[in-house]
């Protein structure tokens, strides 16, 4: 092995930063320990960066090169300025887009590092005495570039969809399964061929095809499946870092890559399970593109009851237990703050208010929890599906705001429904159901009608979510 031998202290420092990253994730097991966990992460990163800077001082003719050092520090400062400004300004409702944008940067950085290693293998210590690049390193480099490029272009599409620059609907290309599989096989074949021939065209073709496949893979995936996509891209960004860690023989990168890779994979699994869908069917795409699929399509004309903000306020004031179920619509309407005010007003009346969150509510894992936290809802008033499911029988009011598929009883009863088998809240057990919805026209992302609209105990509150809650608050304050 021709690896540049780093001093023992540097190897230990990288190991330490890897351990600190593990502690950073460990801290997230509870909100109380999470803040110190985040600090461990920062310390770990600082150790990795400083160690690299100190052991890789740019030199010209044996002396430190001041210009090169200044360029590196300027690059870090520029990134820091952009990163911190973005993090401060971003709205909490835009968090899914921000995470997608960040993923795309990790992906692109991996591609650039891979290409840099190809152009200057000596600096990465992957040169054989013959002057050729070590074939093992070529596989790692090729895979790292491929995963990085897929992460980049996939995240760009995810960002455009989440940010509303591109239709959230699934876009279907004819013959896409054949095209996709063919492209993936071609990429793997090229990575294999790369070990035999280190020509520039091979690495260029791997990069280009991987950009294309990332784009093709995410295009057909619809809005409601975004939590899975964002988690999956999270996972990819980890595997890309790990592949580069193999090239550099760097423990910090390998440990981190493995952590992030497993983290994203587990989140994808949790999201798929919460929708009762297989990972393969999500990746194959097309969910939400067939509005006529499943039962209930011809039942549009059933009777339903409309309520006013005053009715809702009156009923909730008299209630003992109210469970609020927020969904993506709450985020779109930015209704989280007025919703917290409503909960406060109800509590003053002696009502017991709880929030119930479905694992796939919103556009990324934990999206609703962050928004409620932003609105100062204490986390011990927010419950997961399995923890609150049994309480609907005692609930006087189930208050649904911006959610739809996660309360659809068709998931329990209608085998022909596209959401059949997805765990849903038992809202039908509550005495009264209040359902905020913009109009009776639209249905959830899955494109299925919801029997909850037509139940005897359901009161439809048709208005913009924020406006409706504001009106309820006015009525409650009287």
């Amino acid at each position, binding site marked *: 092995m021709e690896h540049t031998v780093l001093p023992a202290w540097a190897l230990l420092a990288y190991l330490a930063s890897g351990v600190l990253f593990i502690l950073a994730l460990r801290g997230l097991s509870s909100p109380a320990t999470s803040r110190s966990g985040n600090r461990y992460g920062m310390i770990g990163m600082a150790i990795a960066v400083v160690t690299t800077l100190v052991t890789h001082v740019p030199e*010209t003719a044996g002396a430190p090169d001041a210009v090169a050092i200044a360029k590196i520090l300027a690059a870090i400062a520029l990134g820091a300025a952009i990163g911190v400004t973005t993090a401060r300004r971003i709205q909490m409702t835009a968090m899914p887009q921000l995470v997608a944008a960040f993923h795309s940067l990790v992906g692109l950085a991996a591609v650039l590092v891979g290409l*840099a290693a190809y152009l200057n293998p000596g600096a990465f210590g992957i040169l054989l005495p013959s002057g050729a690049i070590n074939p093992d390193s070529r596989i790692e480099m090729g895979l790292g570039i491929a995963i990085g490029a897929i992460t980049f272009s996939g995240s760009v599409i995810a960002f455009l969809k989440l940010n509303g620059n591109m239709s959230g609907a699934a876009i279907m290309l004819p013959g896409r399964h054949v095209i996709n599989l063919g492209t993936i096989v071609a990429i793997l074949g090229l990575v294999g061929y790369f070990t035999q021939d280190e020509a520039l065209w091979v690495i260029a073709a791997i990069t280009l095809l991987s950009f294309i496949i990332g784009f093709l893979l995410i295009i057909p995936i619809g809005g409601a499946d975004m939590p899975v996509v964002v988690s999956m891209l999270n996972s990819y960004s980890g595997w890309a870092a790990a592949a580069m860690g193999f090239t550099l023989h760097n423990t910090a990168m390998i440990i981190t890559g493995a*952590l992030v890779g497993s983290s994203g994979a587990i989140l994808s699994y949790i999201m798929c399970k919460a929708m009762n869908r297989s990972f393969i069917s999500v990746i194959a795409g097309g969910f939400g593109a067939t509005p006529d699929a499943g039962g209930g399509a011809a039942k549009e004309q059933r009777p339903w009851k409309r309520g006013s903000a005053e009715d809702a306020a009156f009923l909730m004031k008299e209630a003992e237990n109210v469970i609020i179920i927020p969904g993506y619509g709450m985020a779109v309407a930015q209704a989280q703050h007025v919703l917290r005010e409503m909960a406060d007003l109800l509590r003053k009346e002696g009502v017991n208010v709880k929030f119930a969150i479905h694992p796939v509510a919103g556009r990324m894992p934990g999206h609703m929890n962050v928004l409620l936290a932003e609105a100062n809802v204490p986390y011990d008033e927010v419950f997961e599906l399995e923890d609150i499911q049994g309480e609907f029988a005692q609930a006087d009011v189930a208050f649904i705001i911006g959610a739809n598929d996660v309360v659809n009883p068709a998931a329990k009863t209608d085998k022909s429904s596209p959401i059949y088998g997805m765990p849903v809240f038992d809202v039908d057990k509550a005495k009264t159901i209040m359902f905020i919805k913009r109009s009776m026209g639209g249905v959830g992302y899955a494109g299925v009608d919801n029997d909850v609209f037509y139940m005897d105990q359901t009161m439809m509150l048709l208005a913009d979510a924020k406006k409706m809650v504001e009106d309820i608050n006015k009525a409650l304050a009287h």
Partner: protein
Amino acid sequence: MDFISILSIFVMACFVGYYVVWSVTPALHTPLMAVTNAISSVIIVGALVASAATTSAASSWLGLAAVVMASINIFGGFAVTARMLAMYKSKKKG
């Protein structure tokens, strides 16, 4: 280090990741994604190695571009995670 030692570290770290991530409370899944984003930018190590090598100008410019991207992620990722985590309050504290 030989390939097998590196692979061993990688496989062990996957298991550590598996158990650590399952213990993360679902309420913190968004901060989890933000912080994993920040730490996966440890790829900056590779970017710094490339930028510091004065033997290839093209390679060092690619490295510098990657340093900028990874830094955006590192600083942005940790800052936004800190901002989110600061919002999670328990009832007892008010």
